[in-house]
């Protein structure tokens, strides 16, 4: 049996989940032996194979039109989609801005911060992605495996990847299930 192909990408998150993946230390070698790692944001290949992969992993929530595009693209190129970390699963820390209007958050970020001088303005280049409320990725695409945690522990990540690598759908419970 060919090793399952795995791709990952990140959206509105902090990259911390991918850092936690590296916390697996030498167990990452075991994972590499089980799976064929394709594109990731921390390796050279940036997009999942056109022919598709078996497992797609997304870190971060969806907070603009670009995130949405990446998520939809990953979904359409993978068989099993993993929501990786609290932002992908719940919206996470970025979702705190949902308690304010988009207008308020943009004004705060680009005009009112202590380090912004009077020339501050909200970017409006048509080339830029359109910001929106922060969403869990399940609001846009079907998710098969939820791996919560801020970040998920290396143990939880190892459990999920090794299960997927061996063709099983992982179940999280006990020590591997935590939301913070």
């Amino acid at each position, binding site marked *: 049996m060919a090793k399952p192909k795995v791709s990952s990408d990140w959206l509105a998150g902090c990259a911390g989940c991918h850092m936690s993946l590296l916390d697996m230390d030498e167990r990452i070698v075991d994972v590499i032996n089980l799976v064929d790692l394709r594109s990731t944001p921390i390796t050279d290949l940036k997009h999942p194979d056109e022919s598709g992969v078996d497992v797609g992993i997304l870190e971060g929530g969806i907070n603009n039109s670009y995130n949405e595009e990446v998520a939809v693209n990953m979904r359409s190129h993978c068989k099993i989609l993993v929501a990786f970390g609290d932002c992908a699963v719940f919206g*996470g820390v970025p*979702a705190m801005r949902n*308690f304010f209007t988009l207008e308020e958050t943009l004004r705060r970020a680009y005009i009112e911060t202590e380090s912004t001088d009077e020339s501050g303005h909200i970017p409006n280049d048509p080339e830029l992605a359109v910001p929106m409320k922060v969403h869990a990725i*399940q*609001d846009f695409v079907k998710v098969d495996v*939820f*791996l*919560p945690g*801020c970040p998920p522990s290396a143990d939880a990540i190892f459990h999920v990847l090794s299960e997927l690598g061996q063709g099983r759908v992982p179940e999280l419970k006990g020590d591997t*299930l935590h939301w913070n």
Partner: protein
Amino acid sequence: MATITINGNKLEVPDGMTVLRAAQANGIEIPTLCDHPHLTPYGGCRLCLVEVEGARTLQPSCTLPVSNNMVVKTDTKKVLDARKFVLTLIFSERNHFCPYCQVSGGDCELQNAAYNEGMTHWPLSPNYTTFPMDASHPHIIMEANRCILCRRCVRACGDLVGNYTLGFEERGANSILVADTGVPLGESTCISCGACVQVCPTGALIDRWSAYRGRETQVDITNTVCVACSVGCKVNVLTRNNSLVRIEGDWEGAVNEGLLCELGRFDPMKVDCERIATPMIRKNGALKAATWDEALSTIASQLKPLSGKSADGVAALISTRQPIEAISLFKELFADQLGSGMVTTTEEGEFTADSAVYADTVNKAFETDLKALQTAGAVMVVDADLVKDHQVAGFFIKRKLSAGTNLLVVDKKENGLNPFANKVLKAGKGSNADIFKGLIAAVVKLGLAKGKTAIKATDLDGFAAATGLKTDDYLDAAFVLTSAEKPVFVYENGSDLAVLKELVDVVEGQLLSLKGGSNSLAASQLHLDKTFKINGHKAAFFAIGDGEASQKSVKEFEKAPFKVVLATYASALTGVADVVLPSTNWLEQEGHYINLEGKTQWAKIAITPAEESWTTVQTLNALAEKLSVKLTADWTKEMHERVSVVEIS
């Protein structure tokens, strides 16, 4: 008894028990959120839904009483799906993002419930409605965004504490926890007892002192006794790295059943007094650091010549916050060995001396316990402001008022209980004895006297005039007392106790005195209950520890030619003392305490003291050695050598 079947197990359970309690009693777990073993069932969260044969829908087990032949299932797919759905709805309503919540990671019952159901995500996205956050209170932060509307806090505030500050405004998903009529908590009628924080299952009510300083899995917990007053509440002291994180009421505590007041829960958190770090000896007018040996030698050389002098030797005073072991040694060293005629405590017998003398006279214990307040149909409080001091005893009274318990307050001062009272007798003049006699006369006049008395109904007008009150006031008050069974009389000190006892007997009531500090009763058993006067004494030795001395006794202290103070914190006393000895505080020492109802309790060490801070027992033993005196007192025996006002157990 009823026979019910839960998950195929046939169980015999008492009638009237809820299905939830029946399951719990038999080791069958049903998850809950709004339920709390010490609160009235509410049925608000629906997490405890179970399937009952013959019932149209799932039933909340926390409010469903058992009935004979009931068949209950707690583990069917229908039940498990409902649980997940209930949690899904709760999570969707407010801000329940975990990563930046103080209780996340073990201390949150909502998060734990979700983990137990194996929830990896929220099937419904949150609706991002913003609720106000109230940080106006000095101790408590009220964060409505974390609230799950379980109303545990509301029930604790009302049913347990009897304060009824917390309540809810609006309906349904818009419901919001408010203080009083929606004022900021810090400006409300909140008395800062913290019961609401202790029962909150989520991060909706947290306290400022312990927030983000450690989860329950990261702290050490010491079960000990609060020494703030004579009620003797059992507390769990949470420490981390030998530093105080939080104090919680012990739900298993027989006296307080989980409750604490501000003095017990929050005051110890905000101590910011300067700590005495080393022994000090005054040289050329200024205190200089010294070794323990130098300090004790200095004291011994000054005290030795004063040995055996009753009127002009060493006058000694110890705090009633000290354990009995220390108070007993103190008495033995200063009264028995050094022969001083002036050995007393910080309370100076103010709240115990008169009633102890009365106990000596009648030669038996005559007081009841705090539990009596729970069954009393009426309570008469004399001079004691239970809203300020001995607050937990006040909670026991206040929480019964809505159930119909009558409250009569007799106090010449403004008493915090007045707004709750059915009747207040605030005499303008006269003595308490006149008031008690007036009440007896009024009871006789109503024809409701159950005991014998020489006082006649016709005497009433005279006592009313003597106290500046109307005859009708007395008749109203007498009616409040006599229209209920088992009245309890709570008094502050024993002046006019014989007359009060006559009134108690006339209405077949019971007595309970507050006795002041945490070991005032024990000190009284040791006859340490006189007023402190320096008179001709040549030295003064104050073992204050982390307690406080009255301004009057500090003035007396200043008059002594040689002054020693054993203290935890810098104060007016340490400012004038010739020798200052560093002392442990209540969390750093162990020993026994006898509460106001005679219950002997052991206080444990929760925090390891610094090397230079000695316990009073250590200090007294070391000083005795310097004085070549052997201390052998057995406090357990001493406690029973004098008849006590209440049985000591």
